[in-house]
């Protein structure tokens, strides 16, 4: 039994291969990386300090010298190899059943998809394959193709290693709704937009709280969106997906009561991010609410190792805006886009939003997947 009708099924051996990819990632995350963190932050950084230098400031040069060490290059290459092994093994599993998946998507009714054959993905998404996913978010073979959606969905459960709601990967969606309940509990959204919805992991969760609302999701890839529609429908949610750039959509002004984005802003750019806020502002009716969820990382508070690790993420996991996003004052950007009552802080991750739950939004940060960074405001 899969978690929903569109999730690719794994054979005995494919399941074993996936489990092994998770083990490899666990080894890297829990065994090797903490050793580097310990060496760089607890051993080297104090030595720099004793010599009157700031290792965190020098992180780029330090990283270049670390790369002379065989052990460091091996760690880097192993991390890349594990990520590529994940995509390869998931890709093979999906390809084996792709015909079935394409057909199944068509038999599941509910919601809609609107693709645009003229659509061009922005450079920050098209220059490299983010997360090393072959083809990137925009890959689409046209027709009924759902391949990239199926690959992303299956891999996401491995990628997050169960920390984002298992195979449904919906904790971020529930966390956004929890934030809404805490801040604007009386809002009864009739139209909701999720910008950068990918396969609708968060969109579907959000839709489940507002059965009367018309829910929209936009992203850059046709295959992602076809898959997303069928996935949402198989989970009982009718969502309207369209292939659009969040910087400039074709929805009318004042069309939405709630506009959200989840883990999207760090995959944009300095110029795109403020444009997305301006567009969200245009799309909201007066009194409408905007909520953005992001990774809870701020570059200025990073230790030496965290900076070096950030550089690795940017260069070798193909997250070009990873560091840039962590240097921005997103709250200030929201204000200049016209939002009022702007709050920026941290919300505890939750698998289920509850109006009666004690509020958890604070200005105190915490680890990724335990808390999420939130920037919200009202038009």
């Amino acid at each position: 039994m899969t978690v929903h009708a569109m999730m690719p099924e794994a054979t005995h051996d494919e399941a074993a291969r996936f489990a092994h990819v998770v083990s490899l990632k666990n080894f890297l995350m829990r065994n090797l990386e903490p050793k580097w963190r310990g060496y760089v932050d607890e051993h080297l950084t104090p030595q720099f300090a004793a010599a009157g230098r700031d290792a965190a400031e020098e992180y780029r040069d330090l990283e270049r010298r670390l790369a002379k060490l065989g052990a460091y290059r091996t760690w880097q290459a192993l991390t890349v190899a594990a990520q590529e092994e994940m995509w390869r093994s998931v890709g093979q599993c999906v390809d084996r059943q792709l015909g079935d998946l394409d057909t199944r998507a068509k038999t599941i009714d509910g919601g809609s998809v609107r693709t645009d054959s003229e659509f061009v993905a922005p450079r920050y998404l098209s220059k490299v394959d983010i997360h090393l996913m072959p083809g990137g978010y925009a890959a689409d073979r046209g027709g009924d193709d759902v391949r990239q959606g199926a690959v992303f969905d299956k891999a996401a459960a491995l990628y997050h290693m169960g920390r984002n709601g298992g195979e449904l990967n919906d904790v971020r969606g529930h966390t956004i709704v929890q934030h809404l309940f805490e801040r604007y509990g009386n809002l009864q959204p009739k139209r909701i937009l999720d910008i950068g919805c990918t396969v609708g992991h968060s969109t579907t969760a959000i839709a489940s709280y507002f059965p009367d609302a018309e829910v929209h999701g936009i992203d850059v890839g046709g295959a992602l969106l076809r898959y997303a529609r069928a996935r949402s429908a198989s989970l009982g949610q009718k969502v309207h997906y369209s292939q659009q750039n969040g910087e400039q959509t074709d929805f009318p002004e004042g069309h939405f009561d709630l506009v959200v984005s989840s883990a999207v802003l760090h995959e944009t750019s300095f110029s795109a991010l403020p444009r997305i806020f301006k567009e969200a502002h245009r799309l909201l009716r007066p009194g409408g609410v905007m909520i953005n969820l992001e990774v809870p990382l701020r570059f200025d508070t990073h230790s030496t190792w965290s900076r070096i690790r950030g550089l690795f993420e940017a260069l070798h996991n193909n997250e070009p805006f990873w560091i840039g996003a962590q240097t921005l004052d997103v709250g200030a950007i929201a204000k200049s886009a016209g939002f009022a009552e702007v709050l920026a802080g941290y919300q505890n991750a939750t698998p289920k939003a509850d109006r009666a739950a004690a509020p958890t939004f604070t200005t105190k940060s915490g680890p990724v997947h335990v808390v999420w960074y939130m920037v919200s405001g009202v038009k």
Partner: protein
Amino acid sequence: MSESKQLPDGTEGLIFREDAQHRSEFFSERADVGRLLEMVTALTGEIAILRARLDTHERLAASGSGFDHARVEAYRAPSDVLAYRMQQDQEMIARVFRAVTEEIDRLASDADVRKVLMEKKA
């Protein structure tokens, strides 16, 4: 690449590897490390699958249900079995990559390495 000569793109805040269009520099100019690691991880994957199949055989045998290709293919490990296999797998990985782990452990007592890492920019 790790010799990150390129600086963040000042206007857009984006950082790319110089060879960003390619898979990864580990598989080109650092082919020695990258290709080897790719093969080693692929091999550990094959071993993990083999061990999982063996474990499935043993469990089917113990349950007395008999085993053939179809029964093995149809077997889905429940969560306690998955946890056991994960544990075994983690231990296998730790043994295979022991050399890297130990090398990182040795760094803290290596004054020569520290000297290189703390070299002042020319």
